[in-house]
């Protein structure tokens, strides 16, 4: 898996002059977190002093087990509330905003344990995710002529995405019958139905058949190439080095290092954090 794909090399341009140090300012941040802290019964899970996510690139978020990566995702996307701190998406504060509104703002996440809607067909999973559907309003839903045209447009878009993600022949299957890798693909495709600016992928490769990993990686790069920003949590360093344009490393809730993939690989703080840590095991924290 160390084979590098030459199709789309890392985008270093905008960050070429940025110093590889924790909390560094970036030219065009889409997401800025400041002093965000979350503890569970005395244990500090996340304590991020400052972090900026650059627009239009792929940022890899790494760190040993229990570093607080998933909790950080939960906090940013409104699935958990921090004890204190503020964070801004496109220069708009998201503090206290419920998760569904965060998604509507254009920051969409996936889950480490895929959350496909098992007893709904793949196509319905996709159509659900489209935003601003008039037919989702109670009274309007009773009069199909009011939403049928939009429904058709959504379906066309969903079919296109399914083709792109090689899921089109599974269109009518229940999502629960898909394989682990297919579910990851479905979740990613479904997230795109929201038309997000920022996609947060929580371990998109976890539990995926190795044969599918390359295809998944290409899809992640595809997101960037069509102008979206990607943040992803990953344990496999080869994968991180392969597709990240910028890497952020967390340990014990803090940002301990960030920089280009090359600089991170040699960073002593990162090596320290990983020493003795069993980074090959999937993280337990998100199963609660």
């Amino acid at each position: 898996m160390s084979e590098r794909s030459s199709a789309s090399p890392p985008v270093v341009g905008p960050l070429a002059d940025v110093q590889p140090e924790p909390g560094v300012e970036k030219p065009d941040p889409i997401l800025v977190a400041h002093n965000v802290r979350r503890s569970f019964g005395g244990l500090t899970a996340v304590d991020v002093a400052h972090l900026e996510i650059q627009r239009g690139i792929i940022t890899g978020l790494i760190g040993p087990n229990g570093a607080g990566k998933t909790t950080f995702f939960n906090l940013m996307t409104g699935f958990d509330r921090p004890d204190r701190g503020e964070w801004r998406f496109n220069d708009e504060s998201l503090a206290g905003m419920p998760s569904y509104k965060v998604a509507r703002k254009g920051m969409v996440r996936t889950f480490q344990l895929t959350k496909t809607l098992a007893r709904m067909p793949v196509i319905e999973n996709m159509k659900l995710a489209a935003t601003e559907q008039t037919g989702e309003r109670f009274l309007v839903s009773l009069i199909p002529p009011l939403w049928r045209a939009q429904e058709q447009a959504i379906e066309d878009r969903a079919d296109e995405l399914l083709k792109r993600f090689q899921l089109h022949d599974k269109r009518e299957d229940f999502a629960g019958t898909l394989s682990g890798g297919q579910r990851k693909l479905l979740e990613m495709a479904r997230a795109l139905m929201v038309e997000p600016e920022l996609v947060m992928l929580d371990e998109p490769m976890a539990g995926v058949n190795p044969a599918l990993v390359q295809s998944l990686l290409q899809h992640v790069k595809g997101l960037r190439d069509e102008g979206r920003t990607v943040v992803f949590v990953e344990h496999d360093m080869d994968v991180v080095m392969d597709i990240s344009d910028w890497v952020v490393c967390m340990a014990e809730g803090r940002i301990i290092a960030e920089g280009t993939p090359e600089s991170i690989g040699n960073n002593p703080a990162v090596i320290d954090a990983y020493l003795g840590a069993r980074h090959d095991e999937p993280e337990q924290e998100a199963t609660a």
Partner: protein
Amino acid sequence: MRSLATLVLGVLLVVAALGAGGALAEDDNAEDGGEAIRGTLTAEGEPVPGVTIVAFDADGNEVGAGQSDDQGEWRIPMPGPGEYSATLDEATLPDDVELRDPERGTLEFSLRTGQERTLLFPLGEDERVLARFLPRASQALLNGIIFGLIIAMAAIGLSLVFGTTGLVNFAHGELVTFGAVMAFFINVAAGPGSLLWAAPVAVIGGAALGAGLERGLWRPLRDRKTGLIQLLVISIGLSLLLRNLIQLFYGGRSRPYLDYAVQQALQFGWVRITPRDLIVVVASLIVLSSVGVLLLKTRLGKAMRAVSDNRDLAESSGIDVKQVILIIWLMGGGLAALGGVFLGVVENVSYLMGFRLLLLMFAGVILGGLGTAFGAMVGSMVVGIVTEMSTLWFSTELKFVWALAIMALVLLLRPQGILGVKERIG
């Protein structure tokens, strides 16, 4: 709708046992072979004539009415055996007479075939206003503690089972009933004095039933990967099944044990307690502290708490989770059965007693934090005390409402309960 009526009967019965038990006196001297109710109305030793009393069946249909004569006597022929209520029409009372206890204006009772039953409507000045507040409060507190101890004992199993398996067991109340009824049958068969050894036998029976359900039902279902919500609904079916099987053998009536039925209360300062209630309190305290010691000090207890905290972690650290869960069922079933016997001693034995207790157990368990044994104890004590103390200010008919309302409030403000630890989401 007949089935509804059947259950209505049962519930009326329980409420009758709770609310009006003291005001009912039995009399089997049927004059004309037909069922009837009668009584004599007196206030300050004088008969009260011209007062209307109306009888209703369990569905609330009027089945008869009567008026007290010059001797204050009244009699209403009834249509047959069953569950009824009778209400004294307060509007027909003379101006200077009122019900001594305004809540005793309606009495609920059951009639056997051919039974003629005497009902007492105590008249005169309201005693409750006369009694001083502090003594009444102390008595209510004591009653609340007794009730709370019983709920706590019964609820430990409910909480631990939830903690270890995630099952919200709506059939837990039937373990309580099972214990009480089993002790009742032994007590009746072996005669007076046998309750002392009938109780431990019932505890063994309850433990066996709990373990049997775990081995025969819940474990196989878990092994089949049955979802938790499915399990919850199954437990409701099981509750219906067990409750009505018990009713089939025990009957719909509410009856006391042969032993300790009537006792002279002992007076300690402001509070009165019967020796049987005293025994219940002491025995409950001993049992509950033993459970506490077991959980805190023994290997088994530590294993139980470990499984309850984090099942996967416990399993990977070498604890035999299945074994621990089985022991929890044994213990929970036995404790529930003992709680049932005590509840039967303090009140009466009926096939609905456990189901009626169920929501209060849930309230206690949720108050204390689902899944913890000590939480269940603390929460249950709160529920018991709130239930009884509320009667100082509010109608006894509503005493369960306050406990349930507090549970709802706690869920709103602190879903993890009083002693529970906030769970991590995500």
